[in-house]
């Protein structure tokens, strides 16, 4: 009945033809429908594969290390002994305490350097710089973040090493100090970038409100913007820590690679990651040494996973609040 009225009212198109189109239209699937379905499937595979790969990697390193964890491994010794002597013929010991201390001291020093620099840079770019300066700085920071770690290793080895020897009058320049500075400079750009995003995410009406009350630029930043961006900034710092923990090449080249519990920043140390990189190629597949290195890998995986997960949860917290 409604059909009749519509047809009667519309002079264009014969009644029979209109009726036929309406009847067949609803279940028609044209090319767009198939393209849409295809793309959806493709995107789904892409999305799910990231998760599959991560789980796959975890399963792989766990499998390789399992024989050691349930066999030779002495948990107490593994975490509390500073003696990493996997190649000793009579009494091989697998203690990673010195390696953990090496990684932790380098990362700690790196953060001491990177946090003030990156937060300062982020505050300047997001709050104070204007126009062209801001755009150029942002591009420059992204560029710095893309420098390969081996290049930083070079800098540590060929520039920082003689420099430290000369300035501090010490016998060797491949130390916690060297690697900490290198790692700090490496982590700073990515931390700056994330911290700047966090500051940018603070709604401008907060700044406007504070400025309208007569707050100076700095008062607006310190009293309003930084507290509002707190979680994002903490996330940036944690990601920097994660980066420091996982970095391999630069620390391998700049630490001196000596197993040592550091007592000052002028001691050489060895990092967890660097140990795996340096030794894995020379071990027999399936040997205790091989499996012990994979156990270190599991440990690193868990630590960085926890750090990154915390960072992610912290950053998410700011969106809710």
């Amino acid at each position, binding site marked *: 009945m409604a059909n009749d009225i519509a047809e009667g009212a519309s002079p264009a198109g014969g009644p029979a033809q209109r009726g036929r189109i309406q009847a067949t239209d609803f279940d028609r699937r044209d090319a767009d429908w198939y393209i849409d379905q295809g793309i959806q499937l493709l995107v789904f595979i892409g999305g799910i594969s990231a998760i599959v790969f991560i789980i796959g990697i975890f399963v792989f390193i766990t499998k390789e290390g399992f024989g050691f964890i349930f066999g030779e491994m002495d948990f107490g010794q593994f975490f509390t002994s500073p003696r990493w002597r996997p190649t000793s013929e009579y009494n091989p010991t697998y203690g990673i305490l010195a390696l953990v201390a090496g990684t932790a001291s380098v990362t700690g020093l790196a953060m001491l350097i990177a946090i003030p620099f990156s937060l300062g840079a982020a505050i300047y770019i997001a709050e104070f710089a204007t126009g062209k300066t801001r755009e150029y700085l942002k591009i420059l920071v992204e560029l710095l973040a893309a420098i390969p770690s081996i290049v930083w290793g070079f800098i540590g080895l060929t520039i920082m090493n003689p420099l430290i020897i000369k300035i501090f009058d010490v016998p060797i320049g491949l130390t916690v100090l060297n690697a900490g500075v290198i790692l700090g400079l490496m982590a700073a750009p990515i931390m700056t970038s994330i911290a700047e995003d966090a500051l940018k995410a603070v709604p401008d*009406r907060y700044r406007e409100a504070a400025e309208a*009350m*007569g707050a100076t630029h700095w008062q607006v930043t310190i*009293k309003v913007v930084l507290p509002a961006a707190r979680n994002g900034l903490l996330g940036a710092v944690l990601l920097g820590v994660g980066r420091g923990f996982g970095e391999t090449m630069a620390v391998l080249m700049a630490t001196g690679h000596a197993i040592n519990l550091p007592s000052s920043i002028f001691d050489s140390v060895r990092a967890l990651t660097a140990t795996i990189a340096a030794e894995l190629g020379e071990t027999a597949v399936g040997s205790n040494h091989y499996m012990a290195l994979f156990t270190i890998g599991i440990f690193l995986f868990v630590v960085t996973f926890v750090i990154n997960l915390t960072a992610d949860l912290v950053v998410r917290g700011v969106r809710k609040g």
Partner: protein
Amino acid sequence: MNSPARDDYAVHTVMLNLWYGTFQALFDINLDVKKGIITSLIGPSGCGKSTYLRSVNRINERLGYVRTEGTIEVLGKNILDANVEILQVRKQIGMVFQRPNPLPLSIRDNILFGHNIHMRGQKSSKFDREDVVESALRRVLLWDKVKDRLQRKATELSLEEQQKLCIARLLPVKPAVLLMDEPCSALDPKGTEAVEELIWELRGDFTILIVTHNMAQARRASEECIFMLMGKVIEHGATEEVFLTPRQSETADYIEGRYG
């Protein structure tokens, strides 16, 4: 209109021209806003009423591409002078925005924000500060509602309460002029009524300049009314006169809803 002494004016504007980049938004504005009353600014969108309001505390300079000529005298001092400290201007001239914008801090810290910035020279004990918070919140009729949750985030309040808080936080520094940029447009009718009543309560102690899209609001909640069109002031007079016996045909057309 009789001409009162210059002291009776809170905001004395002479030949104000303003450009956003190359676009001129205000043309030869001459306006005298009387002390202690509520003056409303009406006009269609883009007529320059918000632009004028935002130049009285120079907040529109945030944009960076704004150029101003002319003078705006507040309390006998041209605030556009080169040697004027913009922070002192904003202390004297508070602003309430269209969308309630409490800072993402506690209710208490919102009230104390301006106080802490501007009253730093004077010693203020914790006891004094509690006093400041209470009297500001009492003044906006919010104290009984929030006195038990002063440490809660201000952004958790309802929009109406947020807007009242945004007015309350201006009071501790005792500004001479309050600028309000469509303060009720984000609120529901009940909230609008409550905030309007509050603004009405504040007249006398403050000179209030309020931009509104809502003509009924201008009519019931202001004593003088300014009608602007295309960046120019068309008419300025007692609200009743502007609405009942407008002198300019453009004013009459706008009020009768022929455009805008």
